[in-house]
C-alpha cells in the first residue's frame, strides 16, 4: 500500500465511525420526536469495533450481530438512506420496513442481519461458517455479541460445535460492560470474559475496542490465520456504550463519573487526535468530513420521510418463498465421499 492509499484507508476509518455516530444521533432525535417506534439500541461509543472489523476482513466475509446493529450495517457498506428508512418502517428500508431497527439485513454486503433474541444468532454464525467450510471457501464469518449473550445456552452449543468442527468463525464479544442494567461481573463467574474460549479449545485474545487500528489489525491477523487453516477464534473486545441500553433506559445503574471516564476514551476523538498529530488529517479536513456525514444523516431523514409505506400486500408476501423450478442441483462425485472437513 503506498502512502496516499494508506492515508485514504485511515481517513476512511475515521469517516465511517463518524458516519455511524451522526446517523445514530439523528436516529435518536427522530425517536424522541416519535417518528420511530419500537426499540432503538444505539451503538454510540462502540463504533471502532464495527469499523475496525470490517476494515480487517474482506467484503465476501459474512457478518452477523445482535439488535445493536446500526454500526455494523453502516460499516459494512449499507447506505444511511436505507438504514434510516428501515427504522421509519418504509418500503425503501433495507428490510423493506418489515424488520425495523433490530433487523438490518443486506445480502449484497454479506450483512447477515441484526438479531433480536439474545444469543439466537450465534448458532447461525456457526452455520455460516459451516457452509463456508462445506463448500471449501476461505470466507470468514464475523459474529458479534454482547457480554450478556455469553450466558445463554445457544452460545454454548454453537461455540462447542464451532470448536469441535473447526469452523471458520470469529466470535467477538463486544464487552461494553453491561447487559441492560446488569454489569458483566454480575452475570458470569469468570474474572475475564476472554477465558471463556478455553472451554471450546479456541485460541482467545483480548482486543481494545476503543482503538480502531487495533481492531482492524487484530481482525486482519485472525482472518489471515483462519483462511490458511480454518478454526474459530474467541475475542473479548473491551468497549463501552455511552447511551442507555435502549431509548427507554435511563441507565441509572452507573455513575456519571464512570460514564465521563469512558467518554474520555472516545474512539472517534482518540483516532482523530492521533491522525491530526500524525499529520494525516487537518482540522479543516475533519470539519469538512463531519459536515459531510451530518448532511448525509439529515438527508437520510428526508429520504425516509418522503419514502412510501410498504403496500398492504407485503403483509403476506414474505411468509413463504415460492418454489424455484430453476434450482440446479450440484451432482455428487465419488471424491466427495472421501472428504472429511469436519473431522467426524
Amino acid at each position, binding site marked *: 500500500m503506498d502512502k496516499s492509499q494508506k492515508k485514504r484507508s485511515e481517513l476512511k476509518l475515521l469517516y465511517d465511525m463518524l458516519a455511524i455516530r451522526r446517523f445514530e444521533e439523528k436516529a435518536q432525535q427522530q425517536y424522541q420526536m416519535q417518528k420511530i*417506534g*419500537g*426499540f432503538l439500541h444505539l451503538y454510540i461509543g462502540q463504533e471502532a469495533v464495527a469499523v475496525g472489523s470490517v476494515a480487517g476482513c474482506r467484503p465476501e466475509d459474512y457478518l452477523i450481530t445482535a439488535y445493536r446493529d446500526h454500526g455494523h450495517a453502516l460499516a459494512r457498506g449499507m447506505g444511511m438512506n436505507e438504514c434510516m428508512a*428501515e427504522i421509519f*418502517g*418504509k418500503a425503501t428500508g433495507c*428490510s423493506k*420496513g*418489515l*424488520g*425495523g431497527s*433490530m*433487523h438490518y439485513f443486506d445480502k449484497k454486503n454479506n450483512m447477515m442481519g441484526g*438479531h*433480536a*433474541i*439474545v*444469543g*439466537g444468532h450465534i448458532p447461525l454464525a456457526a452455520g455460516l461458517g459451516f457452509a463456508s467450510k462445506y463448500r471449501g471457501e476461505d470466507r470468514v464469518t464475523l459474529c458479534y455479541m454482547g457480554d*450478556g*449473550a455469553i*450466558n*445463554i*445456552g*445457544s452460545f454454548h452449543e454453537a461455540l462447542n460445535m464451532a470448536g469441535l468442527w473447526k469452523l471458520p468463525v470469529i466470535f467477538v464479544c463486544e464487552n461494553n460492560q453491561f*447487559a*441492560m*442494567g*446488569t454489569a458483566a461481573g*454480575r*452475570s*458470569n463467574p469468570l474474572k475475564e470474559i476472554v477465558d471463556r474460549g478455553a472451554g471450546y479449545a479456541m485460541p482467545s485474545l483480548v482486543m481494545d475496542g476503543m482503538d480502531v487500528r487495533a481492531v482492524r489489525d487484530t481482525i486482519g491477523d485472525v482472518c489471515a490465520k483462519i483462511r490458511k487453516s480454518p478454526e474459530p477464534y474467541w475475542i473479548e473486545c473491551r468497549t463501552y456504550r455511552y447511551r442507555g441500553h435502549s431509548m427507554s433506559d435511563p441507565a441509572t*445503574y452507573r455513575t456519571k463519573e464512570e460514564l465521563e471516564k469512558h467518554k474520555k476514551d472516545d474512539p472517534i476523538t482518540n483516532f482523530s487526535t492521533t491522525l491530526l498529530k500524525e499529520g494525516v488529517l487537518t482540522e479543516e479536513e475533519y470539519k469538512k468530513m463531519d459536515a459531510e456525514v451530518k448532511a448525509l444523516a439529515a438527508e437520510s431523514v428526508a429520504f425516509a420521510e418522503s419514502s412510501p*409505506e*410498504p403496500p*398492504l400486500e*407485503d*403483509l*403476506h408476501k*414474505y*411468509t413463504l418463498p415460492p418454489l424455484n423450478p430453476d434450482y440446479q442441483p450440484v451432482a455428487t462425485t465419488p471424491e466427495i465421499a472421501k472428504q472429511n472437513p469436519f473431522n467426524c
Partner: protein
Amino acid sequence: MTLREITYRQALNEALAEELERDQNVFLMGEEVAQYNGAYKISQGLLERFGPKRVIDAPIAEAGFAGIGIGAAMVGLRPIVEFMTFSFSLVAFDQVANNAPNIMTMSGGQFHAPIVFRGPNGPAHQLGATHMHATECLYANFPGLKIVVPATPRDAKGLLKSAVRDEAPVLVLEVEMLYAFKGMVEPPMPEFDLLVPIGKASVAREGSDVTILSYGRTVPMALHAAEQIEKEHGIHAEVIDLRSIKPLDLETILNSVTKTHRVVVAEQDRPFCGIGAELTFQIQQHIFDELDAPVARVAQEEVAVPYNEALEHAMLPNEEKIVAAVRATCGV
C-alpha cells in the same frame, strides 16, 4: 372495605409482595428483576424489601433459570420465574413445556412443580417479528400446565396470587399493553387477601344478541366494540373474559352462547391451532343446535409480525375487526 384504583402494573407488584411476605418459600427470579426493578417495573421495590436471597437477578439464560425454578419447586420451594417477555420463554421451551408439566406423571406422582412463570405475552407495539409472540396456544397444548391471562388490575392481582398458591405449574400471561391500565381493586393484605379462582371466566359485559369471547388484550377491544355496536346498530353484545385459558370455563361460555345463539371469538394469538379453534370446537360439540350462525373469529393474520406500524395494525386483532365480525355474524 373501600376499593382503590390502581394500575395493572401495581396490582401485579402487590401480588408479588403479598406472596413473598406470606411465604418464605416463595422467591422471584429473572432478568433485571432485582437491582433494575424489572424491565417493566413489575418488581419495583421488591429487592429492597425482601433482599437478594429472594429477589434474584439471573443472567440471560432462560432455559437455565426456568429449569432452576422447576428443580427448586420439586423439592418444596415456590418459585416465581419472570420472563422479560414470553417471547423469550421460547428459548426455555423444553423446561416450560417438557419438564414442568411432565414431572408429575414421569415420577408416578412423587414429584410435582408448584411454579409460576410470568411476564408480558402477546401483541405489543412495533417490536417486530420476534418479540410479541402470543404463546398461549403453544403452551395450551401441554397437559399439566395451567394458563391464565388477566385483563384487569383486579384479575392480575388475584390470579397471580392464586397461581403462587396453586400446586401446578401456572403460566401467568400478562398484557404489556395493559400495564398502565387502571381499575378498582380491594385493599392489600392484611386487610384483604384477594384470590381470583383459576378456571373461572367472567362476564365483562352482559348482552343478549351475540357473545364475544375474549381474553387479555382483546377484552378492552371487545368491550369498546360492544359499545359501538350497541350505539350504532342496537345489538346487545355479551363480552366474556376467559381469564383462564386452561382450565377453560366451558360452563360460562356455553351458558352465554345458549342465551345469545351467536359467537365471535376475539383472540390475541394466531388463528391456526389458536385458542379460538378450540373454543369453536367445544361450542359446536356441546351446543351445536343453539347456534344461529357459524362461529366467527378475529385473530392475528397468519404471518410474522411486521415492524411497519400500518402493516402491524392490519395483522393484529383490533376493534374494527371485532365490530365487522359481530356485524357479519348478526347480519347487520
